[in-house]
């Protein structure tokens, strides 16, 4: 395997199958005639096993070289599906997702996914075809300035204008995408470069000059944190996606256990700390638990580790955690002090930081504080009103957890169902929960589940979807069926753009403008595509179809016809502080 691809999980046999003639007893240099041959050869050297993509004119040379390669290509039915699949693949493995599409519309169809990966720090390398260099700037057929378009939403992007630059560009692109704070890197490939002549050169060491990655914190900084912890009565760990990206979940668990400090998590951090643990207070923020939002408001020391103080987390900034001293550790210097000023700013890898903190063997007295948190949780635990007639969305998520032993990989679309999937499924390990946090991209969940299942063929992968979001990339059903991916789609079908409707109910006098949505018969849709379709309209049926779906060795759509107009609670209304959450809604 390659040095640039972070190995956080096992590689599955089958995916990296041998490139018979080329890699066995490699004495002769690989057979490279064109730029495209060189590209494919180097992708293999970079450890790429799967490409999600869609061909077209500008990438014909690349597809021609790919034809003879052992790299697996997954043909999605829309480029947006390809990039979200690559994101899903990256999110569950920690490896870099790879995408290949043509110029113009192929490239522009990726923009949402690139922005999504940028917001959620997901490592992907995107390769786009481009018109020949001679035609660039002349509004040629299928020309789009994808460099300019994606500059604001990529960690970096390259246009290869000389075939001799390709090896270094590839090495740097993979390195940049999956180091430091991960993110998307785009490589634009003019057709004359890939179609033109090339000779073999090996993949060099990355050399991106000007690219710096923070590593361990200074000893003094760690001491400053340790001192604050020793003196704290109500310390709180506020953890996010950074813990997962840096592979620090186990260290976080050890540190929380050693110090007896309770943990709240962002949406992106779910799974970084086991939900079943008694020190876990839950997700915080707009739809956080009562106890988590009370905790963040009341704590006297906030340990913000691998987070970015997103507005959905902080609520009204002027009211955010006013009684606490704050420590912020993040690998991205630009996140420190961006939204919230802190007493101890630390630009460092959180894994190194936790390792050093563990050496301090800190034991603040948190007994009263933990008891207080327990009391808050008892005062207002997560709850919903279940009946035996109506199917409640929260209950569907609970049943999914029950029938998968809490072990499935869960991806979500965006909306109410996303929040319920976050709140009611107990994630116990990192990379188990995949959701579009920063951009909130409807259409992300289903293709990302596809990518997750490609990466983890043996694991149960469930996409918790809304009836509306699912229709945004429904075409990927054909990809799933064609690839024989046994993933399970759980549609929480409420006949509404539920989250939009909830806001209209609360803030727009129930004027449901364009938030009612019709859907096709999802069972028939499943059947038309060659998948299994099941429907449930009450809790008993729900149990039965979940059991059936999990047992079925193939893709399944479960259409859960749930009660309409259910709302997500608690909710911190926009512009309010976290302590001002609404717990229930009364129409008066």
């Amino acid at each position, binding site marked *: 395997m390659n040095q640039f691809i972070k190995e956080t999980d096992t590689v599955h046999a089958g995916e990296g199958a041998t490139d018979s003639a080329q890699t066995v007893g490699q004495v002769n240099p690989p057979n490279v005639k064109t730029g495209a041959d060189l590209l494919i050869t180097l992708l293999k050297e970079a450890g790429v096993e799967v490409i999600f993509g869609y061909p077209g004119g500008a990438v014909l040379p690349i597809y021609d070289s790919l034809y003879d390669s052992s790299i697996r290509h997954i043909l999605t039915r829309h480029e947006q599906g390809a990039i979200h699949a690559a994101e899903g693949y990256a999110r569950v493995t920690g490896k870099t997702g790879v995408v290949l599409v043509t110029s113009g519309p192929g490239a522009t169809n990726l923009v949402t996914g690139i922005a999504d990966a940028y917001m959620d720090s997901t490592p992907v390398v995107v390769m786009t075809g481009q018109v020949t260099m001679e035609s660039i700037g002349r509004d040629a057929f299928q020309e789009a300035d994808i*460099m*300019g378009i994606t*500059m*604001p939403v990529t*960690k*970096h992007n390259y*246009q290869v*204008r000389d075939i001799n630059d390709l090896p270094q560009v590839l090495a740097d692109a993979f390195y*940049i995408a999956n180091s430091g704070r991960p993110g998307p890197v785009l490589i634009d490939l003019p057709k004359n470069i890939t179609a033109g002549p090339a000779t073999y050169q090996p993949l060099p060491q990355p050399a*991106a*000059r*000007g*690219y*710096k990655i923070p590593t361990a914190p200074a000893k003094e900084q760690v001491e400053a944190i340790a001192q604050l912890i020793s003196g704290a009565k109500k310390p709180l760990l506020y953890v996010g996606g950074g813990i997962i990206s840096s592979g620090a979940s186990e260290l976080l668990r050890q540190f929380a256990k050693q110090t007896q400090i309770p943990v709240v998590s962002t949406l992106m951090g779910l799974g970084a700390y086991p939900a079943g643990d008694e020190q876990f207070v839950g997700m915080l923020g707009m739809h956080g638990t009562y106890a988590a939002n009370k905790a963040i408001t009341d704590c006297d020391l906030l340990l913000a580790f691998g987070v970015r103080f997103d507005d959905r987390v902080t609520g009204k900034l002027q009211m955010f955690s006013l009684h606490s001293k704050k420590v912020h550790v993040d690998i*991205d*210097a*630009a996140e*420190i*002090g*961006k939204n919230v*000023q802190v007493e101890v700013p630390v630009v460092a890898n959180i894994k190194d930081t936790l390792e050093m903190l563990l050496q301090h063997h800190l034991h603040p007295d948190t007994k009263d504080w933990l008891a207080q948190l327990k009391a808050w949780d008892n005062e207002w635990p997560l709850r919903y009103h279940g009946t035996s007639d109506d199917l409640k969305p929260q209950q569907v998520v609970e049943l999914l957890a029950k029938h998968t032993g809490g072990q499935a990989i869960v991806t979500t679309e965006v909306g109410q169902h996303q929040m319920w999937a976050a709140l009611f499924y107990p994630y116990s390990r990192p990379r188990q929960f995949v959701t579009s946090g920063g951009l909130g991209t409807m259409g992300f969940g289903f293709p990302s589940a596809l990518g997750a299942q490609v990466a983890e063929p043996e694991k149960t992968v469930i996409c918790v979807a809304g009836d509306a979001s699912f229709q945004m990339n429904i075409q990927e059903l054909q990809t799933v069926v064609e690839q024989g991916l046994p993933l399970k789609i759980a549609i929480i079908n409420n006949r509404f753009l539920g989250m939009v409707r909830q806001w209209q109910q609360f803030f727009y006098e129930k004027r449901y403008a364009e938030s009612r949505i019709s859907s096709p018969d999802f069972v028939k849709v499943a059947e038309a595509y060659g998948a299994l379709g099941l429907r449930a309209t009450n809790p008993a049926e729900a149990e039965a179809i979940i059991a059936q779906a999990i047992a079925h060795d193939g893709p399944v759509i479960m259409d859960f016809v749930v009660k309409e107009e259910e709302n997500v609670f608690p909710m911190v209304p926009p512009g309010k502080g976290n302590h001002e959450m609404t717990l229930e809604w009364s129409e008066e």
Partner: protein
Amino acid sequence: MDIERTFSILVNDRPGVLTRIAGLFARRGFNISSITVGSAEEAGVSRMTIVSHGDEAMAMQVLTQVGKLVDVLDVIDMSKEKIVKRELALIKVKAESSKRQEISHILDPFRVSVVDVGHSSITVQITGDEEKIDALIGLLRPYGIIEISRTGATALLRSGTEEASDAAV
């Protein structure tokens, strides 16, 4: 404190690098009063000087967000440093032969050079800080200014201050 800020940015001389930096300023809501780019001491490296304004938090965000760009080798906020900062301006002013003597007297203390002379106008080149250039423009305005082209400021730390500011970044 919202003050004028001068950022000096060393970048790889690659296509699009100016767009990356100017775009980042625009996107993050930092204004740009002037921007200059040219080769730096090392081949393949350019130095950009951006004059902007903002408070400490804005300056920190500029340093960290710009610093994050892959093609940026170094970025410093020179606002509180001792620096030399210069701008060049070309000013084409109406100058009938009857007025030339008078104009020449105005120009004298500014140590400008007259770089072009026509029938009814002259073009002068002035270098200096912003105030000096503004002052000359003010004095020439009554004669009728035809065109002005200003480069925007470029700047370097004064000798002996380089190390201190490196540590600050």
